[in-house]
């Protein structure tokens, strides 16, 4: 499943680095965005196969990004995985409503991240 392009959007640089390192090791191509607006710009211009979206971000939060992403024809096939903090059922419900494909709950293990990403990319 190599060669797929993944966008990680998180305002926390350490998380971006951790996610990038983990997923690059899995054979994916990684691009990074530091806030919601940048994430949306890159999603439209770079056409990643999957976007990992942090919920709490400046400018636009993860759900707002997801909401607009789902309206963009050029992002039609793009999968979205939300990065939520533990125990936020409200986040998951909102994500489900807006059409997220998966969740990774922070803090997460690299192995969990890899398996969620692989599963979401494999699903039709």
């Amino acid at each position, binding site marked *: 499943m190599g060669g797929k392009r993944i966008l990680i959007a998180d305002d926390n640089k350490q998380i971006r680095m951790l996610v990038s390192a983990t997923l690059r090791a899995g054979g994916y191509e990684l691009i990074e965005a530091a806030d919601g607006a940048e994430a949306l710009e890159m999603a439209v211009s770079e056409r990643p196969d999957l976007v990992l979206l942090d919920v709490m971000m400046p*400018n636009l939060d993860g759900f707002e990004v997801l909401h607009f992403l789902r309206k963009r024809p050029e992002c039609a096939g793009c999968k979205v995985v939300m990065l939520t903090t533990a125990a936020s*059922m409200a986040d998951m419900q909102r994500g489900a409503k807006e059409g997220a494909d998966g969740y990774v709950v922070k803090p997460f293990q690299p192995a969990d991240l890899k398996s969620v990403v692989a599963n979401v990319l494999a699903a039709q």
Partner: protein
Amino acid sequence: MTVSDDMDMQVYRDVFLSESAEYIQAIIDGMLVLESDPHDLEPVEVVFRGAHSLKGMAAAMGYERTSELTHKMESLMDTVRKREQSVDGALVDIVLRAVDVAKALIDDESNGRAAIDTSSITSELEVRTQFRSSVPDATADAAAGAPSAPAHGDMALEPGERVIHASVDLEDTCVLKSVRAYMVVKRLSHMGHVVDTTPSAREIEDELFDHTFEVVVRTRQAVGDVERAILAVTEVHAARVDEMEVAGGDAAPVETSVPGELHARARTEVPKLSETQTVRISIGHLDTLVDLVGELVILRSRLETLAGEADDLRFTEAVERLHAISSDLQHEVMQTRMVPVGNIFNRFPRMVRDLARDLGKDIAFEMDGLDIELDRTVLDEIGDPLVHLLRNAVDHGIESASERVAADKPGRGCVRLVAARERDQVLISVSDDGGGMDPDRIWAKAVERGMVDPADRDGYSADDVLMLTCTPGFSTADVATKVSGRGVGLDVVRGKIEYLGGSLHIRQRPTGGTEFELSLPLTLAIIQALLVRSSGQTFALPLGAVTEVFAPDEIDAGSVDGMPVVTLRDGRIVSLHRLDVLLGFSDDATRLPGPREHVVLVETGDVARALSVESLTGRQEIVIKPLSRMFRGVRGLGGATVLGDGSVALILDPRMLFSMGGER
């Protein structure tokens, strides 16, 4: 249809009924928030989604009329959501009435009936949905480049606020126009209230505009700050920002331009219950579980007794382990019966609002402590008493606006409903900032009814006099109004609370007004008890009422006017009662405790009394079993329990116990 299909349908129906109740409550809460703050966009969304979800669920169940009605509600809220019309009292009213009909309709349809007529409310909803087209189109004005205050009912400016109109131009090359515009609106909404956008928010989201859009915002910020905030968004090419003229005449609250405006408003704050992850369980299962745990606790006591007799270390250890585990189990099971008081409080804002409206009063209703938990059985029972106390507060407690103004008080009255936890009790208080109760008038009435001796006036504190209103047959309201005074008085309220093992206090608030405070036990089914012996029998005394225990050599007993008393460690002197006398096994009330007897200090309400018993046999958790019908009339007994040795002990009811011997 097969049997299993029927059962499935039944299950779906139950799920539908309980979920629809939640959506209905969410809609009511949302509308009440909207009524107090018509600019808040979040409740609009909540109400819209609530109606939308109800519609979908009702359609899935085949409840066509419910589905149609909620569809109409959804359409109306959609116009608000799209800012095509604004929220006012009349709109809140229509939606609230529609919710009431929806509630009745669900009941109707789920029982296969067709008794409810929805035609009038649906046509009202339709008319109001169309209402937007009959108001001058504010967005058209703004689009025509003629900034003027739109005819929104919500334009009453607060001091220091201004209305700012911004025309924003995005760069030609901008790819994410909708996102940029959304970010501008979002920024402005953080600086104040976004009153209007052109095109509508929905159209902006769907990118149905060229590269110019307009925003009207109500804010305390300066024009320059608003402009800077807009220009800080990427790909904004230019912004023309100016303050809109709000002419003198138009600046007055424009609310009168809307038909059916509310005159009396109950401003309501509805705090949210914290979101928790839950599973629905039928009450029947829970009750069975509690019963089984009760049996387990009884069996455990029996095993502990046997282990004590067997003198086998392994046996004792195993029983101790059983004790620990069953205690945890018991705690958890009792916990499942605990329900946040918010579950019954949440219907009160609506009730208070409607009452205030009917009475033409202006009342703010505040609630606090919604997450405080109470045993479900207790909670189910206190709904009616609370309704009564709240009705009283609104009807009799809060004065009319003119009386309030004359008394130099704010015209808007305040009623508060607060729950708090205090050790093993939950306190619920209903208070108002009204004129308060008049002790002299109450006293005069009590004398007139022959309830008290006029000569005793000095023996009653002001609060004691207030408590007289809880005596059966007492009513101070000279005229039974529509709201309260329907023959159910405070005596019924007090009776219910005491039946639940709680107590009711009435207090004058130092700041004016009255406070009713209910103290309620956390749970009813299993309690800690002190086991005492008297006349050769064991009795269980709820530990909640026991404040101190005296060994024979610690008792400082004496007589005052021939009646036995005990002097406490702190010097207080309290009356001493013999349990055997109270229970009618002996009639020598004046005898002091013998050399082997113990004394237990029992406190109920604010009164402490000493109780002398033959001996103390221990302290244990007991499961309260109701007494059979035969014993129901016996005052002073609260139930029965099974002890470790398999024998039965009667549970004493400390509140009623001392009224049995016929002495004070």
